[in-house]
C-alpha cells in the first residue's frame, strides 16, 4: 500500500518535472520572454545601485528633510536627514524590486498557455496520464521559480553591492531589516503566485501571448499605486503594512488559484478555450 502511494507520488513528481522542463525548453527559446526574464532583474538591480552611487557624495542635498514625506521622516527615528533620505530611496527601490515577481511570471505563463492554444498542443498533452493538478502545478512552477530566483538573486546582489556604492550603515540595516525581508521572502512569492494565476485566467480568454501579458499586467497597478502613494507621503511602508499586505495577498492568491483551477479543466480547455 505504502509502496503504491510512493510510486504514484514519484510518477506524479516526474510528470510535474517533465512539464517544467518542457515549459522552460520552449519558453526560453522565445526572445521576448528571455528579454523580460533577463533584462528586468538586471535593470531593477543596477538602477538602484547606480542611483545610490551617484548620490553618495551629496549629503547636503540629500539631507534636506523637507523633501521627505513627514510621515516617513517620523519613522526614521534618530538617524540623520541624509541617511533618512537614503532609507526613503531604498524603500522606493524595494517597490521596484517587487515588479520582478509580478512581471516575470506573467511573461512566462502568458506565453506558456496561449502558445499551447495557438499551436494546439494542449490536446495531446491533456490526452496523457498527466492530471490537471499536475499540469497546473508544472505550468505555475515553471513561471514561479524563475521569477523568485531572479528576485532573490537581484536582492542578494543589491545587498552585497550596496555598501560598495556608498550606502550608509543605517540604510543597510534597513535593507536587511524586517520590512525588506518580509517583502522579498513573503510578499514576493505571494505576488508571483497572484501573477501566474492572473496570467492563466486571462490566457484562457485571449489568443495572443502579448495581449495576455498586457492584460495580466493589470496586477501591477496596485504596486504602482503604492510607489506613488509613498512618494506623495500618503502611505508609509512599515512592518505592519507589509504583514497586512502579505495576508491580503494570500487571500487574493487563494481566490485566484480556485478560479484558475476551475478554469483549467480538460473539458473547459478543449471545448471553450478558443
Amino acid at each position, binding site marked *: 500500500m505504502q509502496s503504491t502511494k510512493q510510486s504514484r507520488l514519484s510518477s506524479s513528481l516526474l510528470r510535474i518535472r517533465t512539464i517544467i522542463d*518542457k515549459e522552460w525548453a*520552449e519558453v526560453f527559446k522565445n526572445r521576448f520572454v528571455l528579454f523580460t526574464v533577463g533584462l528586468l532583474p538586471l535593470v531593477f538591480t543596477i538602477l538602484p545601485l547606480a542611483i545610490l552611487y551617484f548620490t553618495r557624495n551629496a549629503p547636503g542635498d540629500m539631507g534636506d528633510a523637507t523633501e521627505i514625506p513627514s510621515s516617513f521622516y517620523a519613522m526614521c527615528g534618530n538617524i540623520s536627514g541624509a541617511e533618512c533620505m537614503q532609507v526613503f530611496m531604498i524603500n522606493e527601490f524595494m517597490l521596484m524590486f517587487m515588479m520582478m515577481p509580478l512581471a516575470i511570471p506573467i511573461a512566462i505563463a502568458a506565453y506558456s498557455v496561449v502558445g499551447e492554444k495557438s*499551436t494546439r498542443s*494542449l*490536446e495531446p498533452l491533456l*490526452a496523457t*496520464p498527466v492530471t490537471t493538478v499536475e499540469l497546473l502545478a508544472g505550468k505555475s512552477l515553471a513561471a514561479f521559480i524563475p521569477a523568485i530566483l531572479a528576485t532573490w538573486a537581484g536582492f542578494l546582489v543589491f545587498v552585497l553591492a550596496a555598501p560598495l556604492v556608498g550606502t550608509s550603515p543605517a540604510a543597510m540595516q534597513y535593507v536587511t531589516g524586517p520590512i525588506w525581508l518580509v517583502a522579498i521572502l513573503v510578499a514576493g512569492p505571494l505576488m508571483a503566485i497572484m501573477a501566474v494565476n492572473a496570467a492563466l485566467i486571462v490566457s484562457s480568454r485571449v489568443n495572443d501571448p502579448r495581449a495576455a501579458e498586457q492584460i495580466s499586467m493589470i496586477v501591477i497597478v496596485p504596486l504602482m499605486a503604492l510607489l506613488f502613494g509613498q512618494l506623495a507621503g500618503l502611505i508609509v511602508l512599515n512592518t505592519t503594512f507589509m504583514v497586512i499586505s502579505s495576508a491580503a495577498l494570500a487571500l487574493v492568491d487563494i481566490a485566484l488559484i480556485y478560479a484558475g483551477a476551475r478554469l483549467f479543466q480538460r473539458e473547459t480547455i478543449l471545448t471553450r478555450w478558443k
Partner: protein
Amino acid sequence: MIHTENLSKVFSTRKNPAITAVDGLTLDIREGEVFGFLGPNGAGKTTTVRMLTSLIAPSQGSAVVNGCRVGKDDQAIRSTVGILTETPGMYDRLSAQKNLTIYANLYGVSDVKGQVEKYLRSLVLFGRRFDEVGSFSKGMRQKLAIARALLHEPKVLFLDEPTSGLDPEAAKLVRDFIEELKAEGRTIFLCTHNLDEADRLCERIGIFKTRLITVDTPQNLRRQLFGRKVVIHLCTVLPEWADVLRRHPFVHEVQTVDNKLVVSLDRPEEQNPVLIQSLVQAGAQIQFVGELRHSLEDVYLSMIHQTSPQSGPSHGEER
C-alpha cells in the same frame, strides 16, 4: 476492446441552446480490429474520440475502453490508449527527439531513450531527430505525432485523420504503418474522410452523423445498398438475350446499356457460368464479364444523404 452503450454528449452554455454532438452511440469493437469511423465534418467524430480517450465526460451512457470505464478510470484510460489528434500539436521550437522524450516521460515509459529511437527509426525521422519540429513538413509532423501516440505501446489507438493533407508518398507510408500496427494486433479506431483508405484498412466501418447510421464490413455495406451486379459485354445485344437471362430464377433484374447486359444477382461466383452458358447457347458472342463494384464513397454518400433531396443515383465502377 471498446464498448459503448447509449453514449451521448450534449454541449450547453448559458448563452447558446444545447447542442447534441453525439446521440446514443452503441458500439462494440473487437480486440485487434481496425474500425473506420466515417462521417461529415461536425458529425461528432472528434467528440466521440475525446469521450473514449477520457478527455471529456459523456453527458449520458457508458463506455469501456480496454477494460477501463470512461468517467471512472480516466487516468488508466489515458495511460493505455494512444491518440493522434486532428492537428499534430507538436512543440515547434523543440527538436523531434525532445518532443518525444517529453511525452515518453509523461506516459511513464521505462526505456525512454530506446522507445524514442525505435519510433523515430520506424517512421524514418531518425536522421532529423535533432532538428526543430518547426522546420518539418506537414507529413513529417504527422509521422512524429503518430510516433508520439505509440511511445507507450498502447493496445488501443485512436487515429483522427492520420493521412489528412499528406502527399501520396507520405500517406502511403502512414497507411503501411497502420497495416503494420494492425498486424501487431492493436485495436485501431480510425476517423477518416479518405474512404479509399477506410476501404483498404478497416474490417468494419461505422457511418456516423450525430447518431450511428450503420455498422458493417465495407463489402456488406455495398451489398446491402446496391446488391451485386455483373456486367456482360457482348459484340451486339439483341433484346431476346435479356429475356434469356430473366428466365433464371436467381436473376433479380437485367438492364441493357449499349452493348452490355447488367445483371443483378446474389452469388455471381456460382451463377455466372450458368448465365454465360445460356447466352452462348442463344448465340451471343461474349467479349468479357466483370462485376460492377460500388465504391465506399457511393455507400457513404448514399447513407449520409438519405435525408437529403440533392443525392443522386450512383452508377458504380466496373472491376
